[in-house]
Structures are given as C-alpha cells and as structure tokens.
C-alpha cells in the first residue's frame, strides 16, 4: 500500500517536473529570461539538491522527495519572480525610453528606426524585453492580439506604440503627451509609496530587534524557559506589525 502511494507521489512529481520544464521553456521563448540565465538557475537548483543529498542523508522516501523537489520548486519560483521583476523594470524604464526616443526622432529618424536604436541602448536586464517590443511594433507581420506580451501593462505599451507608429504626423507630440501622463502617474505613485516606506522601514527595524531579542532570550535562558513567553509575545508582536502595515496603506482620499 505504501509503495503504491509512493509511486503515485513519484508520478505526480514527474508531471510537476514536466510542467515546470514547460513553463521554463515558455519564459525563455517569450524572452523574459534568457537561456543563459535559465541555465544558471537550473544549475544552481541541481547543485543545491546534490549538496543537500550529500550533507543530509535522507532517511526515508519523503525526506528524499522533499530534498529533491524543494530546490527545483524554488528555482522555478525564482525564475517567475525574475520575470515579474523584469516586467516591472520595463514599465518603470518607459519614461527614460520615451525621452531618448524623442531625441532620436528629432535627429531626423523615423519612429521604428529610433525605437530599434534606443532599445539597444537600454540596460542589459531589460534590453531583451524592449527589443522584443520594438520588433513587435514595426516588424511583426501579424499585428494582432496573439503577438502581445502576456503582461497587461506591457501589452498596453505595445498597443500605444503601434497606434503612434501608424500616425502620419505629430508622432513626437503624441510621445510627449504619453510621457507627460507617465510622469504624473509616477510622481503620485512614488509619493504614495514614500508615505508608507518610512512606516514599513520602522516596522522592519522593530522586527529585526525582536528577532535578535528572541535569539538572545533563548541563548541566555534556554528554550524551555522562553517558550511560554514566546507563545504570548510573538502573536502580539505580529498583530502589531500587521496593524502598522495595513494602517499605513489606507489613505483617506477626498477626490
């Protein structure tokens, strides 16, 4: 019975591994993460797995399964986090890209040529993504919904570039208007984040102090003496932390 259960778990793990491999391939084919970066992530995961198996001998099937699956799951999670971070970095670099694009166009270049030039000048972590967008704007034979990036905001950026590309005149004026809107949004977003940033920084410092204090208590008095206090103080501290984080977010807007 137990071996049947183990076989089922193994089969599910294999399906999970195949899905993870497929997702990793999609990330590379969408040029969100480069093949080299994906290879580094997977190599790191395998290195962690090997190291954990050498240092900690698994005593049973489940311990072995956890030691093998956890680094791989973490690797795929890391790849997706990297993709999300990249998408956000692309959105935030739009202002800079538009400024450079307008300067290139004022030199006498067309939108598509200027965009191609400017995307190659962007920093390496987001260059691939911008190059993909630039190529979708001008060289994509099928300018339809299926060639849009999966992220909503990147899709909107691409749509806007395509709309401006199709204009016969006033392209620079439209780009300037778009840039002005992006800047206003960014200013207000940054102010909102800054309002919360100070509160969050203070709460993180308090959390660090609490953790160090807890470690000190355990080291000085032993776990048995500290356990009771910890069971009361930890939920109390976490409740305070939660209220600070949630309360700091709620701005009363009069608009």
């Amino acid at each position, binding site marked *: 019975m137990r071996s049947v259960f183990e076989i089922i778990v193994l089969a599910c793990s294999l399906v999970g591994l195949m899905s993870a491999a497929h997702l990793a391939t999609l990330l590379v084919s969408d040029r969100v993460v480069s093949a080299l970066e994906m290879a580094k992530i997977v190599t790191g995961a395998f290195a962690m797995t090997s190291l954990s198996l050498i240092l900690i001998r698994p005593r049973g099937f489940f311990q072995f399964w956890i030691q093998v699956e956890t680094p791989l799951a973490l690797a795929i999670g890391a790849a997706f986090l990297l993709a999300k971070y990249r998408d956000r970095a692309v959105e935030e670099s739009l202002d800079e890209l538009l400024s450079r694009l307008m300067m290139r166009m004022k030199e006498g270049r067309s939108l598509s040529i200027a965009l191609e030039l400017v995307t190659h000048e962007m920093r390496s972590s987001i260059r691939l993504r911008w190059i993909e967008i630039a190529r979708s704007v001008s060289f994509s034979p099928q300018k339809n919904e299926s060639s849009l990036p999966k992220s909503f905001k990147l899709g909107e950026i691409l749509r806007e570039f395509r709309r401006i590309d199709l204009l016969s005149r006033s392209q620079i004026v439209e780009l300037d208007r778009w840039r002005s809107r992006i800047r206003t949004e960014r200013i207000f977003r940054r102010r909102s984040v800054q309002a919360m940033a*100070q509160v969050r920084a203070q709460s993180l410092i308090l959390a660090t102090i609490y953790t160090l*204090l807890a470690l000190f208590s355990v080291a000085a008095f032993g776990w048995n003496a*500290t356990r009771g206090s*910890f069971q009361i103080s930890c939920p109390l501290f976490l409740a305070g932390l939660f209220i600070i984080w949630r309360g*700091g977010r709620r*701005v009363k807007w*009069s608009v």
Partner: protein
Amino acid sequence: MVGVNPVLRCLMGLEESIVRGDSVRDSLMQWLDLETRKAASGESAAALDREFIKEAMEFLRRSEDVDQTGHPLDVSDLRCRTVYRESLFIILSDGILGNAILPRMRELRTEIEAQLELDLKAHVDSLPLKMLVPLLLFMFPSFLILLLGPITRNFVEALR
C-alpha cells in the same frame, strides 16, 4: 494605495483621447474598456477604483439621453461621492452637448492634483500618531513579555 487616483487617471486618459479627436462619449467608453480589461487581466482594483468606475458607467448610461433631449445631465442624480467627481461629470456632460471642455478639464486636473497632494500630506502627518497605538498596545508589551518572562519565571522558581 499604490496606484494613481482613478479620477485623475480618468481625466488624463480623457484629455488625451479628446485631443486626438475622439468624442467625449467614445473617450469615456475607451477608458472604461481599458479599466475593465485591466481588472480582467488580474490587476486588482481598489474599492475606490470600482466605486468610481460604477459612477462613470452610470453617467455613460444616462448620457445617452443628453443627445436626445439637448439638455445637460442632472449630475446630482448620480450621487457622486465627491464634488470633484461631480465637476468632472458636469464638464463631460457639457462636452457631450458639443461645448469645448479641454480648458475646464485642465483646470479641474490642476485642482485634483493639488487636493491629492494635500491628502497625501495629511496622511503622512497623521502616521506617527496612528502608529503609536499598535506600538504601545502590541509591540512594546511583546518586548516586555519576551525579556521579563524568563526572568520572572526563574525568580518564581527560585522563591519556591
């Protein structure tokens, strides 16, 4: 709130569309369509956004009568939460009738930006006082319990 206020976002979006030559109603429909697609794509909308979008959709629905009657819409029926939203819908209602509204929209945008700045400043100024309550009632006692708990326990055991 990390995003931009929906009223300001709407104003900026409508301004752009109207400058491009779209009609007021088409501009508003495009903006609402964008917001709906944003929500459908999984980008979470704050309660404030949903509330404003509902008001805008109601305005759009009622504005169909404006063209037919030729009279501006009675915005008080919409029961807008703030006077800025009411002003926006009054301006849009005039725009549907064919009047020039861009200068008024720009003035309203300046007013809204100034008010949002004030709201943010008020929020930042109130934060130290608001944070004092969880600090005193939750975090400070938790530190005391963690520090004094083992000492008190050892003391009581020594007394026994």
